[in-house]
């Protein structure tokens, strides 16, 4: 349906890459909920991953995903990638609630770099402020999720070479939680389904 209107962005494509395969789900949002457009799993050879289930064969992975994207006519679609929880760092920091988002991001970056001394690994991260009941509290709980920038950039580059536009990178556990109650969805597609439920960002 979205192809009829050239000004309307295509729906988000949920993508989870694990040694079991690359799960790919695309949903169309309707008034009642979601309409399933595509749901498929691309089998992946185990050589693409190391012992810690991190991706190592980016070129081959890109080729496999490209074939499927072209076959389904999904080239140019925005994509939301699910990262396995073991590949990310999930932290909780206590920071001043008076900090702006930019100041808080700068503080978190410093904290993350100090934690990886002496390597000073660069991290891509996102955070969310947890609601506090005490409005006069001096510190605010901040939920931080971080991933090594080098690894994330390689994955984004791999997916974009396959013809998709990466818009969202999230954690598989949050995506599965969002997809709870999805009707008759196979467990290996659940995280991709949950990722595809998010809104397409304007940018």
């Amino acid at each position, binding site marked *: 349906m979205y192809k009829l209107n050239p000004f309307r962005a295509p729906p988000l494509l949920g993508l989870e890459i694990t040694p079991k395969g690359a799960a790919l789900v695309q949903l169309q949002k309707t008034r009642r909920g979601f309409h399933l457009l595509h749901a498929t799993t691309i089998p992946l050879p185990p050589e693409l991953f190391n012992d810690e289930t991190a991706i190592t064969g980016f070129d081959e992975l890109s080729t496999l995903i490209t074939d499927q994207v072209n076959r389904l006519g999904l080239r140019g679609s925005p994509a939301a990638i699910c990262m396995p929880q073991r590949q*990310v760092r999930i932290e909780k920091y206590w920071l001043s609630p008076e900090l702006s988002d930019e100041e808080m*991001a700068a503080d978190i970056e410093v904290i993350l770099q100090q934690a990886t001394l002496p390597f000073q690994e660069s991290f891509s991260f*996102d955070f969310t402020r947890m609601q506090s009941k005490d409005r006069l509290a001096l510190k605010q709980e901040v939920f931080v999720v971080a991933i090594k920038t080098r690894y994330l950039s390689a994955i*984004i580059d791999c997916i974009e070479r396959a013809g998709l536009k990466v818009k969202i*990178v999230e954690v598989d556990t*949050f995506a599965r939680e969002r997809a709870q109650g999805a009707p008759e969805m196979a467990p290996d597609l659940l995280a991709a389904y949950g990722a595809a439920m998010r809104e397409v*960002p*304007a*940018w």
Partner: protein
Amino acid sequence: MVEINLYPWRNELRQYQETVTKRLCWSALFLAMLCSGGIEGWLWRQGSLANERIMHIHDEISQYAQYEAHLHAGSNQLSIAELNERMGRLAQTAQFLSLLHSEPDADLCFSTITRKDNVILFSGQSRSHADLNKFLHQWMAATLFTDIHIDEITEHEDGSLHFRFQGTENAV
């Protein structure tokens, strides 16, 4: 529900907002220029129309002035000539009436005296041809006419005459 996006979306969002802002600024500028150009064109068109109207009015005024001058000059000449002529006619008529009044012994009577331009038509009755001839020879007012022409004489059974003649007035 935690909404985390590890993609560097803040940079993307900032770039997107900058792009949108630039587009809006350029669009506003373009729209303003378009409106300004449109208004300027409309004003220029109105100005040229107003100039055309002014030129037309000037033409009308000059034509009217020429016409008025011509009319004024013409009317003066006509009125002076007409006035002179009418004054002459009036003087002649007054003299004619005065002479008519000064002849009480005439043995005829005029029934109608009418004027047509510079010709005066007389009609009336007399007792005989002799009375009519005598009157015409002695008529002092005959000096006011260049010529007198008898048009009709009708004789009744009792010998009386019905006559009609005309006299052409002297030039004024």
